[in-house]
């Protein structure tokens, strides 16, 4: 630690830790049994009601789907806020990406600095990109059976997109890398998610309820998984590609 007297920050930090430990001590000290009411209910009726073998997916897209809608909105606000801040920085952003914030294609920005890429990255990203994309789609669509789902699949798809965007040949390889396409997928995904949520109202089952009351809700869960996965993948992919352009100076 610094030799001179500890600064105000360090003293305040010690004070905060002492106060927080005092207030939170009962939580650490508590050894009560974990409640089993909901676990027993789900074990008995979870799969029949939701149709999904993976009960965590059944909860966060079925029983508590409203939380997931809120979480998707948090991600949407974070991505568009961060892009706004990075994009609006103007001069420091390579010209291609300054337009990304306003929706023009920045592919030109990617191509211009391709010459400094080594051969290794081109080969790896060129070959690996599509494989990662397929794996991401798998995780997304099989979320109700095996562990996974919208968010995890979406992030894997985003890393696939970044792989495609990094290679020098990758820039022209697929339109998927363009910020304009990603921004459009994200906006369309959000609108689709809201329409899916509104479908319940139209069909009379209620807001965010599975619309076809007869059929098992698993179809609705898979649809939500796919829409959220696309939106998360496009959003995070857009954020990483905008940052990619920004970090190269």
């Amino acid at each position: 630690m610094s030799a001179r007297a500890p600064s105000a920050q360090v003293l305040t930090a010690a004070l905060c830790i002492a106060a927080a430990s005092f207030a939170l001590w009962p939580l650490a000290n508590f050894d009560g049994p974990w409640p089993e009411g909901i676990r027993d209910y789900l074990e008995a009726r979870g799969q029949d009601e939701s149709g999904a073998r993976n009960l965590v997916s059944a909860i966060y897209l079925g029983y508590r789907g409203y939380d997931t809608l809120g979480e998707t909105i948090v991600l949407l606000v974070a991505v568009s806020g961060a892009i706004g801040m990075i994009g609006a920085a103007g001069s420091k952003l390579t010209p291609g990406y300054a337009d990304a914030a306003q929706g023009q294609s920045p592919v030109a920005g990617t191509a211009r600095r391709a010459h400094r890429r080594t051969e290794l990255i081109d080969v790896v990203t060129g070959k690996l990109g599509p494989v990662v994309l397929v794996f991401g789609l798998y995780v997304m669509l099989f979320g109700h059976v095996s562990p996974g789902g919208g968010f995890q699949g979406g992030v894997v798809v985003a890393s696939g997109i970044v792989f495609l965007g990094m290679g020098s040949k990758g820039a022209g390889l697929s339109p998927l890398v363009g910020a304009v396409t990603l921004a459009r997928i994200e906006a369309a995904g959000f609108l689709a998610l809201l329409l899916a949520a509104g479908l319940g109202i139209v069909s009379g089952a209620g807001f965010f309820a599975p619309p076809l009351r007869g059929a098992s809700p698993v179809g609705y869960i898979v649809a939500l998984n796919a829409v959220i996965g696309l939106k998360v993948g496009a959003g995070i992919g857009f954020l990483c590609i905008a940052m990619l352009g920004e970090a190269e100076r």
Partner: protein
Amino acid sequence: MVETDLALAPVYLPLVGAALAFVAKAFPRKGSAAAKALEYSGAFVGLALPWLALAYLAPLAASGGAVEGVIGGWAPQLAISYRFDGLAWMVDLLGFSVAGAAWLYALGAGPKGPAFTSIFLIQASALAATAATTDLFNLFVCLEVLGMASYVLVTSSEKPGAFLASFSYLMVSAAAMVFFLLGVYGLYRLTGALEYGALSRGLSALPKAGGAVAAASVASVAAAVALRTAVMPLYGWLPDAHALAPHAVSAVLSGVLIKTPLFALSRVLIALPGGDEVGMLLGYAGGFTALAAVLIALSQKDVKRLLAYHSISQIGYVVAAWGAGTALLARGEPAGTAFLAAAFMHAFFHALFKGLLFLTVGTISDAAGERDVYLLRGAGKALKAAGERLPITGLAFAVGALSISAIPPFNGYASKAMLSYVLKGRWEYLFLFAAGIGTLASFIKLSTIFWPAAGTAAAGAKALGREPSPCPVPDPSLAVPDPSLAAPEGAKAAPYRMSASVGLAQALLALACVGTGLAAPAFYAAAVRYIGPPGAYASVPALYGPAELGKTLIVIVGGGLLYLATRTKSGKAVAKAIRERPRGFHGLFAAFCLGLAGLYFWMTYIA
């Protein structure tokens, strides 16, 4: 079936509007007619249509009834439950009226473009969702959405200071929400449920109602939400965030964003054992805040920071009555409804006149290109130079200033009279009365911006007709410009152009202030019926009785004298000391952790 769908319409419609605005940002060319059409239709869907849902649900809410249910029709012990009752209806009324006026203002002068509109609509939706939820983790998600939207909106003024203010606000409230998560862990582990009713039943079945673990969890949850309402000592993040945000966003932040978490918290505290102790302590903190924040406001130089500290003081008024009401309701005494109704009435009236003040003072500071209250003079002339034919901004400012200073017949007078009637006999009442004097003094100081620029001060004062005692010519020693308060960028370069929607927004809010002022007794009686159980009733006092008018006279004279006191040499020294007190980032966390420990100590050992 229609009620349950319409009950969630105030949450769902702004989201659809936001989705349209996002599509407007992504698909058509920037600034093209299609983009504008999509954005404005999104704003219409998000800010205008919810009024129809509220109108449809008004009779149900007025009868003290409620729409309760589970989102998605899943099993009730698992799914997210919501309750759209009178309280949620009124908080939506508060949210959509200020958001609508602020968006109109932003159309003219504020940040433009679909990116701003989409996040503004998401904030409106989060306000409605927070008011209607009765599930603890869903409250966590709603508060996070509300926070994220407001962090981004604060930075949309592109001022460097706004990024620092938003960064501090983000870090301290994100950390507070992790404490909230620990509270959810404690309560879920004790009761195995997340819905308020099930939590309350589960906790009261436990020995000592869950003992220290329940106390620590409820304290964590209450402290995290209290931070969002900026009651002292948790106020540090608010002044910079509200002062440096765009004017439209400042109006929504001060008007709505620090009140909705408060009424969401009252649902939690009324349900959980130990909630009455938390309500009591927050009520005392509110009384103290009302007075302390006014003294800090009196010492400010920047006009918007002065208004921001007044927001903290006025939220102190609201929390004082709200805390007492929540404590009574948590103990099951129906008298608490009158307190909560008075608290909501002041919250709503404050949203109107504070929103109005932020918009008008913002317009004036942009038009004159100056934000220092000691240097900003000749506001009327600057507005005329900016192309304002009718003195709308001047009149609207006068309405706002008179309302906040509790001058009859404006709405501030009515709601403060109701608060003092409800809080009579409690010591917070004295703090609120003294704060009233401070408020009037600082608004005399703020209205000096309308004096002619270094012309005959006396003539300017007479024209205003509000100065109780002749005021000396502005003290030249004050005229030294403070470099850090340089005019905002571009204000001098591009002359500020007034636009129709700015005048419209201000006129709407000013009319609302005057209208609610006249209809205050009816509004209070309605608020009691909305918030209370069916058949609730509270006696409405006479507003213009001799006692109230006598007190108003004392406040006016006291305010004038206090204003003169701030002009003296020692007064300015005290003001400078308060203004330049050390305020670091780490102070925010010290205030939060000590507040949490104090709340826990109060719950387990004192109350």
